[in-house]
């Protein structure tokens, strides 16, 4: 208890900042906008399902690499792992056009307001993947002497999928995106229809797996 008090003296309260930003957003919503995060006003079974399917299969991430996990994120976009197979290679530079924020790395106190602004600038529906141990819990920075690293990005914004690793392999990020698709639609995607170079169905001549 005493130690917590001490650490709260060192760390300025970030919660108040988050609350303030949220309050501002919700006043903006009550001014006449519709809070889309609250879900649709009307639910139509099949249409809703189709819409969810479409949203799950075109998750455009934001170009937002913070630390070394971003290198793995770039690796996921490149030829060997190829995130574009799942339709998410469209890394949009503007938060207005992106659906998915991949928090790839250490979030420190100086970056926190920027991250919040970027998150608020994304139009709904939006999702967040915390990539790597730093974004999940502070990772190696989660020590007593830590004064500037936010221990987990979920203290700032709601996170949908956590991908552990330091840094996680590109397969980890791909699995994270598939998990997110599963979360959106409730079904495991992709429904297997095309063979991938890395899929276990692949038979290599003279190689027993």
């Amino acid at each position, binding site marked *: 208890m005493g130690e917590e008090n001490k650490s709260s003296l060192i760390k300025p309260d970030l919660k108040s900042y988050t609350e303030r930003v949220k309050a501002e957003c919700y006043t903006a919503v009550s001014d006449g906008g519709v809070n889309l995060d609250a879900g649709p006003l009307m639910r139509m079974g099949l249409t809703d399902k189709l819409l969810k399917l479409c949203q799950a299969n*075109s998750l455009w991430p934001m170009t937002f690499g913070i630390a070394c996990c971003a290198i793995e994120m770039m690796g996921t976009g490149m030829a060997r792992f190829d995130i*574009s197979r799942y339709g998410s*290679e469209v890394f949009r530079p503007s938060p207005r*056009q992106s*659906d998915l924020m991949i928090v790839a790395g250490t979030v420190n106190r100086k970056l926190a307001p920027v991250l919040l602004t970027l998150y608020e600038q994304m139009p709904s*529906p939006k999702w967040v993947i915390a990539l790597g141990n730093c974004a999940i819990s502070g990772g190696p920075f989660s020590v007593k002497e830590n004064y500037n690293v936010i221990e987990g990005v979920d203290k700032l914004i709601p996170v949908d999928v956590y991908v552990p690793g330091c840094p996680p392999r590109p397969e980890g990020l791909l699995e994270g995106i598939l998990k997110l698709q599963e979360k959106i639609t409730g079904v495991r995607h992709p429904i297997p229809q095309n063979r991938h170079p890395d899929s276990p169905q692949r038979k290599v001549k003279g190689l027993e797996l």
Partner: protein
Amino acid sequence: METISTLPPELIRMVIAVIIIISFIFLNAIMMGYLERKIAGHVQRRLGPMEVGFHGILQLVVDGVKLVAKELLIPINVDRTFFRLAPILSFTPVILPLLVIPFSEKLQARDLNLGLLFIVSMTSVNVMAILVGGWGSNNKYSMFGAMRAVAQSIAYEIPILLSMLAIILMTNTLSLKEIVGAQQKIWFVLLQPLAFIIYVISGIAETNRAPFDLPEAESELTAGFHTEYSGIGFSLFFLGEYTNMFTVASVATVLFLGGWHGPSLPYGEYLGIVWFFLKVYFLLFFMIMIRWTYPRVRFDQLLNFAWKYLVPFSLVNILITAVVVKL
């Protein structure tokens, strides 16, 4: 049927043509977006979209539905009228040039005797949309994107017009149908190779494609003039861009590549559209390949190239053409 027969036949014809063209614009954007991502993938030794449909063929449909369903966000400090007007202004005028393009001998909505001038004036409205959108967004990146677009467009519209002028000198007409008709024996790309090269380069610049995509240079200006646009606004800009590409490629086909002419087919006056589309999509494929294999030029290089090389060369080309035609 009574009411239909009392309407002027020209009106019915125009309505049918507009409906076909609008549906074609959406189809074209979907095909082009898919081709773009697939070709990009294969250029970079990736696979491209694979999961949605057979080899990802439904990827762009899915993207379209998602974009339409996204929140339409209008930031607080923007000019609301202009902000909403810009995507519509970018999308609407690109329909009109397709009305005068002769897809085959008998497939043309309207044969204007000033067809070429009509197309040039309509395609330049797109710059207006970019300016309105960029300025109305009240965002420094959008503003810079819009300013670049205007400077670039002014620079590159002149070589486009000058290279068209060489063809007009030879055919003595502005009607697209008659220009294609004049290429029965020999395509103008063989008689006017310099004008064709100048037209293609300036056409790529005019449609803001790489290597001239400075108005939306991602590394410098977040997303350029459409930084603040989400959902449907962004997709309308996207539709406008791809339709503009189609217009530029089809004008190049009409002026230089012989339009509907090709080895003869049964019902040639209608099925000439096959040759037309083959040529247009070959040019579009060429534009996509250029986008994914060349780096972006710097802004001073872009303007210097237009004013120092393209304009003088096209002027020389016109001079030579005029002398040869006179002799």
